[in-house]
């Protein structure tokens, strides 16, 4: 969302590396965010090891149980499936899709931004006009158009979400590269006879990496919501695969009798995205001292 428009902080490597531990204690928001994200990711990772019911085993007699009823910690859904189990197994799907989509968008968009920013001129113009065309679509709309062409499904939703976010990374990386492009250390590398590829990968990329970290954290949250959204409207995960979005869609039909079935997966999305945003906000403040000064 518009959050993406925040000015990219100028790259500054030195202050980040020093006194990490001190800063973590100094910033409750960062600590809470990291703890929240780690907790959810860890639970998703160890889901197969936990004493959970099978997420897909139905028990029609005990359908739509409340939390704590019939031995369901978080209750059961319309087919009597264990909500806690489905939530943790669904987390694996949602988080994986968001991470892979972010990775694809990052590599594709990042390369475009790197080339456009580094070479400038015609290369920049052509690449950025292509990005403008991608940006001409309100983001969900482009994802929807792509899913329309490829057909509904989790993999196609992943591709669509990745493509939609290419423009975001391309612009972000380009802006960061423009800042360092004419700095002395790049000139020095060139004077030493380094070729473009080497300069791009060994000099430019590491120096724009810290602000990119903020970018990725803020973006993963958005990707989690987008993935859940596509699944929610039926264009993402198809049964029997469950992610948080399809769980929400299932719960929607039983809001009258069992509101918790819809509320719980949404709370999970909210908790994870909230944690990621806390981390992203704190990282941004840490990387950009001028901004931190204004907001603290």
């Amino acid at each position, binding site marked *: 969302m518009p959050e993406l428009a925040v000015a990219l902080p100028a790259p500054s490597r030195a202050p980040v590396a020093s006194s990490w531990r001190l800063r973590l204690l100094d910033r409750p928001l960062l600590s809470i965010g990291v703890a929240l994200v780690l907790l959810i990711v860890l639970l998703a990772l160890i889901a197969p090891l936990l004493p959970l019911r099978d997420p897909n085993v139905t028990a029609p007699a005990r359908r739509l149980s409340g939390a704590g009823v019939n031995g369901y910690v978080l209750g059961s859904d319309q087919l009597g499936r264990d909500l806690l189990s489905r939530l943790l197994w669904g987390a694996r799907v949602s988080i994986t899709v968001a991470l892979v989509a972010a990775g694809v968008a990052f590599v594709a968009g990042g390369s475009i931004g790197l080339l456009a920013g580094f070479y400038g001129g015609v290369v920049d113009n052509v690449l950025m*006009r292509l990005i403008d065309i991608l940006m001409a679509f309100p983001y*969900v709309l482009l994802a929807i158009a792509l899913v329309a062409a490829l057909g509904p499904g989790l993999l196609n939703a992943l591709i669509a979400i990745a493509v939609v976010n290419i423009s975001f990374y391309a612009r972000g990386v380009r802006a960061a590269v423009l800042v360092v492009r004419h700095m002395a250390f790049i000139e020095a590398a060139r004077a030493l006879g380094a070729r473009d590829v080497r300069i791009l990968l060994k000099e430019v990329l590491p120096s724009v990496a810290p602000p990119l970290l903020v970018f990725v954290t803020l973006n993963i949250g958005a990707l989690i919501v987008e993935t859940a959204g596509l699944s929610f409207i039926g264009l993402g995960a198809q049964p029997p695969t469950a992610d948080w979005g399809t769980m929400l869609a299932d719960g929607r039909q039983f809001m009258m009798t069992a509101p918790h079935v819809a509320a719980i997966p949404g709370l999970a999305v909210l908790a994870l995205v909230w944690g990621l*945003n806390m981390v992203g906000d704190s990282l941004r403040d840490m990387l950009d001292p001028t901004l931190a000064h*204004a907001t603290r």
Partner: protein
Amino acid sequence: MHRYLVQRLLLVVLVLLGVSLLVFIVTRLTPGDPARVLLGPRATEEQVAQLRTAYGLDQPLHMQYVTWLARVVRGDLGESIQLHRPVLGEVVERFRGTLILAVAAMIISFTVGIVFGVAAALRANTALDRALMSLALLGISMPPFWVGLILIIAFTLGLRWLPATGMFSPTGGGDLQDLLVHLVLPAVSLAVVPLAVIARLTRANVLEVLNQLYVRTARAKGLHSRTVVLRHVLRNTLIGTVTILGLETGWLLAGTVYIETVFAWPGIGAMLVNAILQRDYPLVQGGVLLVAAIYVLINLSTDILYLYLDPRLRHA
């Protein structure tokens, strides 16, 4: 400035052409021969070949694109497979619903967001500021479709205060009051995330302006603090807020897809989702094209408005 405007307009034309090409290619990516799909499995090869010629599907792809584009420019978007009526009429009608929803959400998010942001900035680092900014951080993390479901559970199923489906009551109603009552829940659900974003942005902008020398001068002149805030701070903050108008519109147009689905609101977002699930490709094509075109034009207007609000840019 004129040169900038001309350049900007040329870019819009280029982008729109690119959008149309993308929409054309994307719908051609769909597996299967459209003629075969239309005629069904029992059609003979001869019939299929005949239809291919009739629809120009035997032409090379770039020729097909040119023919298609020429029709689109004349306002002919084809006919919906499912509804058996021209796509243009359907799309325009549905867009009205989306526009009402998006404008309502925009009014809510801008007024409340700016008030929250200014209040937080003027009381920076107090309990009020922290409370508002914590709320805003929570707000930007909320999935809009989930907010919709929660509001329905609370206000429709629980308190029975507000309706949760459609734009008008099926029995009677149909007047402005009926519309407004139906509008509350979907508009609020749609407004939550942009409201939080605007509050955060406004706070940062106001803090930045408060540090400017001209604000100090205004204060030193002994102006009333309300005058300083309204005349010197807010006016200069406005420019920063307007820049996200375009982005906000994009987000609202996207968000309506979910919100219309949740609230059965007769808009273009819900129509597109249905059209995809029903494989009604002409309708998908027309809807995507129209929304993208409107979005590009709104972004253009934002840029021009920006020029108007910031005189420094006009001479640059």
